[in-house]
């Protein structure tokens, strides 16, 4: 099980080389939905009873799950169930009213979005949020601000440190873009990209922050089946390449059921079921949440 590859390997190997080494059958999910291979390690995300109220309205409540270090997990649920709110809580766009979560064993209470990002949570957005007027490459490089460490003086005078780090950043950005085969678009203005490419660029940008957990908010929205299929491969590829955990929100059931190892189903802000894809597919509560009770359906 060679889940941990270093980056250079990926750029040279193709996705499929990586996948051939990956034994899918071994990834089973237990009650706290950690894949077998992550069981002996602490979960990267340990979310405990997270909840938030807006005014008097409870948007999310008692949200408790754990995510393994290399797990691909999914959150599904009907519209308005509070899925994106959970992402906003995990990235501290909102501060939770109740509960907390541990990231890599560290309590995140009171942290800001910026701190969370520094610790290693990166995300994409349901409604794409790129830096529209920057080029594709700059979008990626902007996210690499931690490794590009020169100060304002270097930024103004463009000294040797600037040149060295900018060169490295340029190479790294192209490398990351090449995951999605976007290196040729590096000089395009981000807003001029086609929709699908914009979604991919968001993922690349998130990866550029060197995350340990990647949160994808409806990555397949607006994609056609072949693009979705490609995306599925890419999600797995990213996990395998970078050895990170991925938590995604998605409405496309084929994607969720195919890619995710653990799934949590949310309705009215609460988890109504969690388990492996098979378990979820057969769970009556889930079916009810999606299709409604019979008497209400008519």
């Amino acid at each position, binding site marked *: 099980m060679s889940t941990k590859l270093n980056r250079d390997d990926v750029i040279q190997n193709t996705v499929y080389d990586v996948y051939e080494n990956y034994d899918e059958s071994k990834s089973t999910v237990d009650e706290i939905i950690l894949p077998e291979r992550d069981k002996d390690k602490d979960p990267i995300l340990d979310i405990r009873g997270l909840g938030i109220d807006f005014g008097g309205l409870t948007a999310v409540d008692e949200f408790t799950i754990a995510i393994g270090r290399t797990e691909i997990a999914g959150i599904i649920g009907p519209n308005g169930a509070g899925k994106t709110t959970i992402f906003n809580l995990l*990235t501290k*766009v909102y501060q939770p009213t109740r509960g907390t979560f541990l990231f890599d064993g560290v309590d995140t209470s009171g942290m*800001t*979005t*910026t701190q969370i*990002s*520094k610790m290693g949570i*990166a*995300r994409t*957005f349901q409604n794409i*949020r*790129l*830096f*529209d*007027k*920057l*080029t594709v490459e*700059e*979008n990626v*490089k*902007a*996210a690499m*601000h*931690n490794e*590009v460490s*020169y100060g*304002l003086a*270097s*930024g*103004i*005078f*463009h000294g040797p440190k*600037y040149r060295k*780090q*900018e060169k490295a*950043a340029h190479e790294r950005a192209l490398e990351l873009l090449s995951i999605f085969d976007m290196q*040729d*678009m*590096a*000089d*395009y*203005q981000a*807003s*001029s*990209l*086609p929709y699908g490419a914009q979604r991919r660029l968001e993922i690349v*940008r*998130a990866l*550029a*922050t060197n995350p340990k957990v990647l949160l994808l908010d409806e990555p397949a929205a607006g994609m056609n089946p072949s693009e979705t299929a490609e995306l599925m491969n890419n999600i797995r590829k990213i996990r395998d390449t970078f050895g990170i955990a991925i938590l995604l929100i998605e409405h496309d059931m084929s994607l969720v059921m195919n890619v995710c190892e653990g799934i949590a189903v949310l309705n009215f802000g609460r988890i109504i079921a969690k388990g492996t894809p098979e378990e979820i597919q057969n769970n009556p509560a889930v079916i009810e949440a999606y299709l409604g009770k019979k008497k209400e359906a008519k």
Partner: protein
Amino acid sequence: MKMQIKNGRLSPYTKNSIISYGLVIGAFVIVSILNSMGMVSSSLQGQLVPICCYIVMAVSLNLVVGISGELSLGHAGFMSAGAYTGIVVSGILETSGLPIYGRLAVAIICGAIVAGVLGFLIGIPVLRLRGDYLAIVTLAFGEIIKNIMNIVYAGKDSHGFHLKTNPDLGLEEGGRMLLNGPMGATQVQRISTFAAGFVLVLITLFVVQNIMNSKQGRAIMACRDNRIAAESIGLNVMKYKLMAFTVSAALAGMGGALFGLNYSTLLPVKFNFNTSVLILVFVVLGGLGNIWGSIIAATILTILPEALRQFADYRMLAYAIVLILVMIFTYSPKIKNFTQGFIDKNFKRKKPTAQTEGGGQV
């Protein structure tokens, strides 16, 4: 969709930088040559230094409005901080035996430092606000700076430098009043030169354009384009906005010092809301984030009222009409669509889809 981006193609920043430097250096050379041939009118000659100042002001404001995306209506406040600092410093050094250029340089540097510190201090509270609220608070700070300059009195004599909020400085015989409250600075020795202005413009271009093409510039523009996304990738939005604001204020201080030392008198009223707006007009007309656009707009709009003198009483009316028409002409979607075909034919870009580019919106 392969494009001709690779080999040898200049990045857009490099290209724009070259245009900016080229414009400035070219204009300097041409004007200098014409001047040596005696072909520059006194009218234009007298405006060379102010033009340089306004270019510095416009380019520095562009850093805040265009590149950082925050509407500031108080830029003249920083200009005045720089101007008065420059005047005081130059006044103190008058007897120091420093050569004029040395004095000018020290005055400009001090102006930049004071304005920069002021920008930093003001930026901390101001940048917590957004959009039009930020605009009104910058306006307020600009007015407050002006108001405070009205009660500052400074002078020097053999006992050294005096600074008070009332005119009784108790200067001894032979002492000199440097700042005289609402009467501003008078008897300023005029030491600004076109060459100094030219150097200052180059410094400003160097600073702003290099920042744009650096980690800091990317971060500043990222915060402008999408604050939430910028936070999500770990950018400290406040820090970068403050950085842009402070650098811009410092540059404005430089421009102010040059401006202040170009006239024998300077009233605090000069740096009111109208001046801030004037500079903003340069920036918007030149194009947000477009540095060489700012240079051209600042130059034209400084010369324009003078060029319109022959319209006498109708001069400012004509200026207003030109301003409105130019805004409508360059920004109206309808007129843009009308001219789009023409432009596409002539200046086709190598971009995959023809979405509107930067310029217009905040």
